[in-house]
C-alpha cells in the first residue's frame, strides 16, 4: 500500500495554517522538516510533566528523564539497525557529530581525508581545519551530470587516505552517492568511512550493519525531529578508540585536581546537561518514521519531483542530473542570471511557497561553477501533487515577470 499523504498531513498542525487567505506550500524540507503532533506532544510532555535533569538526579522526575533518553537511544538504535545503544551518541546536529570525529580521530601529518566536490560546509571545514596538523583534504570530482564518479574515487584512493568523509545525499542537488560501493573500496584500502547522512536519513532506509560505514552523522530537524538534536553513529570499537571531544559534566565518572576518569560510551561524548526534551522528541520522530515504509516515501518524493521536472524542467537550468529519479526530492535550479533570492521571495509572497535560495552551505561548488547559488524546492512525505502544481504554476508566472 502506498503512502497515505492525506492522513500524514493531519499529523502536521502547521499545514493547517493559512497566511493571507492561502495555505502554506512547504518545500524547504532539505533545510528543516515540519514536526508531527506526536513529536510536539512528547516535547510538551517533558516540559509539563518531568522537566528535570537526566543522569544525575535520583528522584522520580530525574529517573523518568533517564528512561525517556534511553528509550530514545534504543529507538534510534533500531532505526539505524545499529549493533547496540553505545553506538548512538546524541549531538546537537550533524555539524557537531562530524566535528566530534574530526577532533577525536587520530589523524597524523600526511594522512588524507577524501570528500566529494559538493560537500556541505559542515563536512568540509572540520577536515580543512586539520591542515594545521598536516592532514590533507582532497576531493573527488563528480561526473559532468553531477552524479558521483566511482572512477574518480578509485583513482583518488591510496594508502594515505585514512578517512572517506562523504555526503550520502546531496542537499544541493539531491544526488545520492553509492555508499555501499564506496565503503567496500575504502575498506579495501584500509580507510574508514564517515557518512554525512543529514539528507539521506529522512528519505532512505539506512541499515548501518549492511552498509558497514564506520560513522554516520545526521540531524533531528531534517527528519521530523526537534531543532538542536542530532546523532553520531559510530562502530563501538572505533568510538572506544576515539579521544574525547567536548568534556565536562556528564562525561566523567570521577575527577581529581589533576586527572579524570571518563565515562563509558556513549556518555563520554555527551558533555554537559543534555537537550532532554529534544532527545526524547527525536526518539519519537524516529518512531514515527519507522511506522512509515521508507520505500513509499522515496517513491512519493520521486513522483512529485518528476512532475515538477516535467512542468518547468525545460524552462529553468536544473542543478544536477535531469532525471528526477536521480535527485531524490530535490529540485534545485536557476533561471538565467536572475538572483535566486528574488525568485524565492516572489514565490513566497505570491502563494506562500516556501523554498530555499542561496548557496545552501555548498559555496565551494557554486564558486567553482561561477554561480551565486540556486533556488531549491525540496519535497517530503507530506507534500502533495496539488502543491507541486501550484509551485509549477507560480514559478511560470515569476519567470514570465523576470524574463
Amino acid at each position: 500500500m502506498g503512502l497515505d499523504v492525506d492522513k500524514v498531513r493531519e499529523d502536521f498542525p502547521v499545514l493547517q495554517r493559512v497566511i493571507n487567505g492561502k495555505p502554506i506550500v512547504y518545500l524547504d524540507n532539505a533545510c528543516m522538516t515540519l514536526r508531527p503532533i506526536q513529536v510536539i506532544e512528547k516535547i510538551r510532555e517533558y516540559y509539563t510533566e518531568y522537566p528535570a535533569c537526566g543522569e544525575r538526579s535520583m528522584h522520580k522526575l530525574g529517573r523518568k528523564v533517564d528512561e525517556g533518553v534511553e528509550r530514545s537511544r534504543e529507538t534510534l538504535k533500531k532505526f539505524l539497525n545499529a549493533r547496540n545503544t553505545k553506538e548512538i551518541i546524541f549531538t546537537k546536529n550533524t555539524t557537531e557529530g562530524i566535528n566530534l570525529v574530526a577532533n577525536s580521530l587520530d589523524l597524523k601529518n600526511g594522512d588524507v581525508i577524501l570528500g566529494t566536490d559538493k560537500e556541505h560546509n559542515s563536512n568540509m571545514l572540520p577536515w580543512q581545519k586539520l591542515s594545521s596538523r598536516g592532514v590533507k583534504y582532497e576531493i573527488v570530482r563528480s561526473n559532468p551530470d553531477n552524479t558521483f564518479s566511482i572512477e574518480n574515487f578509485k583513482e583518488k584512493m591510496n594508502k594515505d587516505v585514512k578517512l572517506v568523509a562523504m555526503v550520502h545525499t546531496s542537499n544541493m542537488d539531491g544526488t545520492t552517492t553509492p555508499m555501499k560501493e564506496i565503503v567496500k573500496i575504502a575498506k579495501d584500502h584500509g580507510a574508514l568511512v564517515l557518512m554525512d547522512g543529514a539528507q539521506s536519513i529522512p528519505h532512505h532506509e539506512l541499515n548501518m550493519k549492511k552498509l558497514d560505514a564506520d560513522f554516520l552523522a545526521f540531524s533531528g530537524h531534517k527528519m521530523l525531529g526537534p531543532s538542536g538534536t542530532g546523532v553520531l553513529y559510530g562502530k563501538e570499537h572505533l568510538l572506544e578508540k576515539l579521544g574525547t571531544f567536548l568534556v565536562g559534566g556528564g562525561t566523567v565518572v570521577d575527577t581529581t585536581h589533576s586527572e579524570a576518569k571518563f565515562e563509558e560510551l556513549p556518555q563520554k561524548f555527551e558533555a554537559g546537561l543534555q537537550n532532554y526534551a529534544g532527545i526524547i522528541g527525536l526518539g519519537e520522530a524516529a518512531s514515527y518514521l519507522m511506522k512509515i515504509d521508507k520505500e513509499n516515501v522515496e517513491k512519493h518524493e520521486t513522483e512529485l519531483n518528476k512532475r515538477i521536472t516535467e512542468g518547468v524542467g525545460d524552462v529553468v537550468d536544473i542543478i544536477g542530473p535531469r532525471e528526477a529519479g536521480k535527485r531524490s526530492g530535490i529540485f534545485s535550479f536557476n533561471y538565467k542570471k536572475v538572483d535566486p533570492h528574488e525568485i524565492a521571495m516572489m514565490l513566497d509572497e505570491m502563494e506562500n511557497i516556501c523554498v530555499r535560495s542561496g548557496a545552501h552551505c555548498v559555496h565551494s561548488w557554486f564558486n567553482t561553477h561561477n554561480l551565486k547559488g540556486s533556488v531549491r524546492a525540496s519535497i517530503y512525505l507530506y507534500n502533495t501533487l496539488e502543491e507541486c502544481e501550484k509551485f509549477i504554476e507560480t514559478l511560470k508566472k515569476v519567470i514570465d515577470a523576470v524574463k
Partner: protein
Amino acid sequence: MICIIALVVFGILGIFSAKYRTIAKEAFDCVFRRLTLRKCTTGLDKRLKSQITGKFMRKRPKLGKFLYRHFEAISWAFTIVLIVSLGYSIYSVGNLFIYGNCNGPIPDAFCVFDPFISGGHGGECTIEGPVGEIMGVLEVHPHDPSVGPEDAKVTIIEAGCFVCPYTKQAVPVVKQIISHYGDSIRFVYKDFPMSSTHPGAQEAAEASHCAHEQGKYWEYHDVLFENQGKTNFEDLLGFAKDLDLNTTQFSECLTSHKYKSQVDGDFAEAFAIGVYGTPTFFINDQVVVGPKTFNEFKQIIDSELARG
C-alpha cells in the same frame, strides 16, 4: 534607491515600533554603502523588490511584471518625490518657527503643523447661510468690555461666542497677547452669539453682561469658557454665585433680558460688515478668522505697532 525610501519610512516607523528598527538599520547600512560607492550587501533592496512585486503579481500580474522591470526607475521617481516633500516639509517647519505658520509671512493656506489648523475655513464656528467677505471694522462702544488703554496704538476686537469651541481655543492665546503687550494694546470683546447653530449662546452672552454690571466681566467670561455648554438658568446663576455676585440682581438681570438689545446690537453690527463666524479678530483694520498661534498674532500686532 528603494533603500533611501525604506530608510525614511522604516526610520519613522522605527521610532514607534521596535520591529521596524532592524529594517531601518539595514536600509541605513545599504544607503551608507551606496554613498561610499560600495555595493549594498544586505540584500534589502532585492527583498523589497521581490516582496513588493510579488504582492502585485498575486492579483495584478501585468502590473507586477511592469513593476519588476522598471523597479529602479520607479524607485528613483519615488525618491525624488520623497526628497522634494522632505525639503518642503523642512521649509514649512522653518516658517512655522519663524512666522508662526507654514506658509511664510502671509498665512493664507492650510498648515498641517499648526495646532489650531489655521487658515481657510473650518477652524471657526460659522453662522448658517452663505459666507462672504468681511468688509470694514467693528466699532467700539463705551459699554463694551475691554482691557488696556483707550488710546493704545493697537486695538484688538474679538467677535466671539461663548458656546463656540474655536472661540474657547483662542482664549489662552488672547491671554498671552494681553500679558505680552500690556498697555501697548487694547483688547475688546464683542458678542457674536450664533444661537441657531450654538444653542445657549445668547443666554451666555447676556449673562456675561449681567456680570459686567457687577464688575466681574472677565472672571465670568473665563468661567463660561471653562464650563462651555452649560448655559441653562441654574448654571449661569450658579457661576454668578461662585463668583460672589449679587445673585438676586443677577437673576433679575437674566430673567428680564436686560442686555438682550446690546447683544443683538453687537451681532447685527458684526453681521452687517460680513462677520460669519467666531472667533473673528480685528487687529486695527486687519481681519483674522479662527484661532491662531501667538506667533501669527504677534507678526500682525508688531507690524501695526511699528506702523504707529
